[in-house]
Structure formats: structure tokens, C-alpha cells
């Protein structure tokens, strides 16, 4: 007999077994998967970098041919930017965002899972090009006209275009998920200006990434398709490298040794503003958890999920 108290846990419980593993939509599971998979791609990109370095150790080295070297540096760059830096950020975002804003899960859990699986398959697809010796070789930035059909008639650039197309779907899915979650699923009384800093960077990156993906062509591999991919790549560079959420990661965590002065001035300014707006006196609760919350809250970092400790 199902009681009310069992309905919700049963609805939210993950299915068990292999099907459960493969169909999980829990944001923490997906977040960890993103991080693990990104890290594996990071290692693959690192191996390619090591081979490149060995080739460059002495002049006119013959470890790899020019064809292979061109594929190496293209794939290394593509992997590091598109298959490591961006997805690992999405992984951390997936894991931390609902916790930081007091949501149960992301706004679209199944879309979240879809985003992860497409990312995985996009990576596998683009690396499968090595099996046929046709890895992308036009540079990770894929400049035209070198990568147009005239100067790159083989399949290499096609692998690049399709792989990035799939990855773009994954990124767009993730970005939409973050944006909706951050706008609609914040805990009560967490106004948008009280969001932790990390959430802000995720929001900014997601809005920018969504804008990037709007012009992505659908499987158009002619000259104009290559050009559009190139434009996407340029915007992606700006998204990932310039928006730089990784730096905000550090700012959010702020360990107690007081180093990194240049970061701290930024935080000092925000701390001052938060003190004025939040009007939270440091909580006087007795448990260590509450003391931790008080310490962190005093530093200006809001932890609404930790507030469940009843401080």
C-alpha cells in the first residue's frame, strides 16, 4: 500500500541495475560523468601534446610525418577546448548549481542526461577519425580557406565539422538547462543578486554559449558551412577563454590563507556590498556546522543549502 510519504521518494528513486546506470538523470551523477569523461579527453589531448613535443625536440625530426603532426596539433587543440575545458565546466556546474541554489535537480533532468551522452558520442566520433587516419588537420581554429573543400578535400574536416556539430547540440542543451534552472529554480528569497558567484559565471557562460550555437549550421559542409563553424570556433574561444569561469571558481572558494591579493580586492568589494544588502548577522548556533556556515556567510558566500542545518 503506497503512502504519501513513499510517493515522492519512489518517484525520485533511480532505477537499479544497468538500466539504472545508463538512464540516470540525477544531476550529481551526470556532473561526475561529465568530469570523468572530460578528464579522459584531457589525458588523450595530453598524450598528443607529448608526441608533439617529442617531434619538436630536435630540428627536422622524423618521429611523425607532417600529415600526422597536423592531425596531432589540431586534435590536441580541439580536445582541450571543446572536449575538456567546456564539458568539465558543465560538469562542475551540473553538480554544484542545484546545491548552491537549493534546487532538487536541474530544470530538465533528461535533457541534462541527453547532453552528456551526446557529448560522449561526439568525442568518440571525432576520435574515431584516427582509426581511418583522417583526423582533422586544419588546426583547431579551422581557418578558411585552408579548410574549404578546395584545399582540404579529404574527410578530415568533415569529421571535425560533424563532431563539433554534435558537441554543439550537447552544449546548447546544457546551456539551456543552466539558464532555466538559474532563473526559475532558486530557493525562495534568493533573489538573483544573492546567487553565489559561481552561479553567475555559469549563467553568463551559458547565455554566451547559447548565442554561439544559434548560428551553427545543420550539417552544411560546403564553404559557408566551414565559415560558420569557424565563426562558432572564434566565439567559443571568447566564451571559454575570456569569460573564464575557472577564475571565479577560485574566488568562490577562498581558502583562509590570505594570498592572491589581486583576487581578494575583488572579493572585498563584493563583501562590502553584500554586507549592506544581506543584513545577515553571523549566526550564533552551537553546532560546528553552524559555525562553518557563520564563518562562510561572514565572508559573503551564501549557502542556502547549508541553511537546512537550522542555524
Amino acid at each position, binding site marked *: 500500500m503506497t503512502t504519501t510519504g513513499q510517493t515522492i521518494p519512489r518517484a525520485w528513486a533511480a532505477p537499479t541495475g544497468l538500466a539504472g546506470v545508463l538512464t540516470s538523470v540525477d544531476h550529481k551523477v551526470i556532473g561526475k560523468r561529465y568530469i570523468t569523461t572530460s578528464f579522459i579527453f584531457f589525458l588523450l589531448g595530453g598524450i598528443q601534446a607529448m608526441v608533439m613535443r617529442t617531434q619538436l625536440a630536435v630540428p627536422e625530426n622524423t618521429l611523425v610525418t607532417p600529415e600526422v603532426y597536423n592531425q596531432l596539433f589540431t586534435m590536441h587543440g580541439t580536445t582541450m577546448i571543446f572536449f575538456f575545458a567546456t564539458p568539465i565546466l558543465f560538469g562542475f556546474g551540473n553538480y554544484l548549481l542545484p546545491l548552491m541554489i537549493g534546487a532538487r535537480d536541474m530544470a530538465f533532468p533528461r535533457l541534462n542526461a541527453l547532453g552528456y551522452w551526446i557529448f560522449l558520442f561526439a568525442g568518440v566520433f571525432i576520435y574515431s577519425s584516427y582509426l581511418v587516419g583522417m583526423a582533422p588537420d586544419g588546426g583547431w581554429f579551422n581557418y578558411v580557406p585552408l579548410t574549404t573543400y578546395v584545399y582540404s578535400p579529404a574527410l578530415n574536416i568533415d569529421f571535425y565539422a560533424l563532431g563539433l556539430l554534435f558537441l554543439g547540440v550537447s552544449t546548447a542543451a546544457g546551456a539551456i538547462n543552466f539558464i532555466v534552472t538559474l532563473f526559475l529554480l532558486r530557493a525562495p528569497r534568493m533573489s538573483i543578486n544573492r546567487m553565489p558567484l559561481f552561479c553567475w559565471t555559469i549563467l553568463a557562460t551559458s547565455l554566451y554559449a547559447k548565442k554561439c550555437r544559434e548560428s551553427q549550421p545543420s550539417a552544411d559542409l560546403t564553404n559557408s558551412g566551414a565559415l560558420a563553424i569557424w565563426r562558432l570556433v572564434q566565439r567559443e574561444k571568447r566564451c571559454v577563454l575570456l569569460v573564464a569561469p575557472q577564475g571565479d571558481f577560485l574566488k568562490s572558494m577562498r581558502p583562509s*590563507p590570505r594570498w592572491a591579493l589581486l583576487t*581578494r580586492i575583488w572579493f572585498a568589494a563584493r563583501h562590502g556590498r553584500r554586507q549592506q544588502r544581506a543584513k545577515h548577522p553571523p549566526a550564533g548556533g552551537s553546532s560546528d556546522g553552524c559555525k562553518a556556515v557563520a564563518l562562510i556567510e561572514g565572508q559573503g558566500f551564501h549557502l542556502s543549502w547549508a541553511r537546512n542545518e537550522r542555524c
Partner: protein
Amino acid sequence: MAVPAALLGGCANAPSTLSPRGPAAHQLATLWWVLFTTAAVVFVVVMGLMLYALFRRRSGQHAGGPTGIAGGTVGSRSYFVTVGGGLIPALILVGVMIYTVSVQNALSMPKEPALRVQLIGHQWWWEVRYSDEGVVTANEVHIPAGTPVLFELTSADVIHSFWPPQLQAKMDLLPGQTNTTWLTANQPGVYRAQCAEYCGLQHAHMGLMIVAESEQQYAAWIQTQRQDAPRPADPVLKQGEQVFFGSACVYCHTIRGTIATGKIGPDLTHIATRQTLGAGILPNNIGNLSGWIVNSQTIKPGNQMPPMYLNGNDLNALVAYLQSLK
């Protein structure tokens, strides 16, 4: 400063931006050292503060309670953070930016150039034209030392980039567009330039030799280059010329004054005056030229010249003829 500069100076065949030989490159190198020194000082200061913060002893009153910023109540020591962490970096960055922009400005403005050279980038060689003089050559540029020279850059296929590290910054060669850059070589000498934008399989082997020489030498060189190819007198050279006309050479190469008017490959009218072959990758001598003609694919795989399997007699004659094209 002299020792690290010497270490970073580079060798003759691997020119370094830190061994400048022209006014533009001097400014760039100075900018580099200014930025490097500033960054080094900031690094030492920040690391010193970090070590101090890590290893200092906390005074008793602060133990065990929540602390504000920098060990005091909020606002009491924010002066140090605001000035040290905000104001001083802002001043440094603004100062560096002003200096950088001024250097960029100076680098991009052509002084009154004495000379104009057009560079047209191909996969993977440089077409060199002196349109004012009616000279066409390849992979080697001669300029008078001490005078500013304007370079007009475009590409016939993909994006390349012209980079003489000891003389100027990089400037792209874009198809369908003409970019301009300028440079002055203070002293006579040979300065190697390199393609600096990935342009395909042999991007690494796309070099250009810039030969700066005295006014008289430059005038003599231009005079030679303007003329048509010398007609061979020697029977061996005549045979070589016939081999040239009878093979596929004429489809791609031009030798002015003869029936060879191919436009696909480099102009060979005065090939014997060049120091290198294959766009700066081989010294120009009989052996290398023979090897190049027979099978350049083994030297620069993927380049657009097919192997030309000639018998030894024909090859010798051909190479002798080409080496006579001074």
C-alpha cells in the same frame, strides 16, 4: 641583461625576436623586456606576500573566531587591499597598455618608404614582385640596408603570414586583400623570415630570405633581375635548355626571355642568384637542385612539384643550365 639576451639571441638560422636588427623589432623587443620585468617584479612581490601570509604567526586575539579580511574587522585593513590589490595593478596595467598601444602605433605606420615590394603567398612558397622595377622572383627579397621598405602582402590561396622576427612583427597574407607592413634593416645581412600562419602540409618549410645590402649592391641586383635570362652559349647549357623546354617544367615555371611562361611555380629567370631552394630550406647548389628536380617530394612532401625522372645526362645539363641563370 646581456647574458640572457645572448642566450635568447638565437642562432643564424633560427632568428630570434630578441635579437632585433631593425627599429621596429627593437621597439618590440623593448616592449617584451618591459612586460617581462614588470611581470617578474609583480610575481616576486605577490609570492613574497603569500609566503609571509603562510608563515607568519597569528597573534592570540584572533585565534578561534571568525575573522574578517586581512586579520582585522571589516574595513580596518581594506586600505592595504584596495591600494595594493586594486589601485596599483590598475595603474600598472594602464601604464603598460598606453606603452603597448604606442608601440603598436609606431609599428604599423609606414615611414616614407624608399621601396615597395609585393609578396604573394602560395602553398608553400613566396612570390616576390617589385612592381616599380618590373622584377619577379621567388623566396628571396633584396633590400637596401638602412632604408624603410614597404611590403604589400596578399595570398593566392590560403592564409599565410609574413614574419621576419629580427625586423618586424607578423602580418597576415589574406586572399583577396592586401595588407601592408614595413621594415628597415639597420645593417647589411641575411635575415630569415618564416610563414607564421598554418597553411597546410609544408607550412613549416615556407621560409623567406631577406637580404639587406648596400645601395650599390642592391642597385646591381635589381639591374640583374630586370633583365631577361641569359641565353646559353655552351653546348651543355644549350642541351639543358632543351631539356627544360621539352619537359613538364614549362607548364609551371617562367624563364623570362624564353618560351617558358608557366605561372604555377616560382619564377626561375635568375634562380642561380638565390641562396636557397624550396623556400629557404636547402642551400642552392648543384646537388640540392638535382635532388629537388628529380624528386622534391622526398624533400618537401606534398609540395606541388611532381618528380621529374630524367636520365643522368639530361639532369646534369639541366642543372648546369639552371645554375647559369644568374
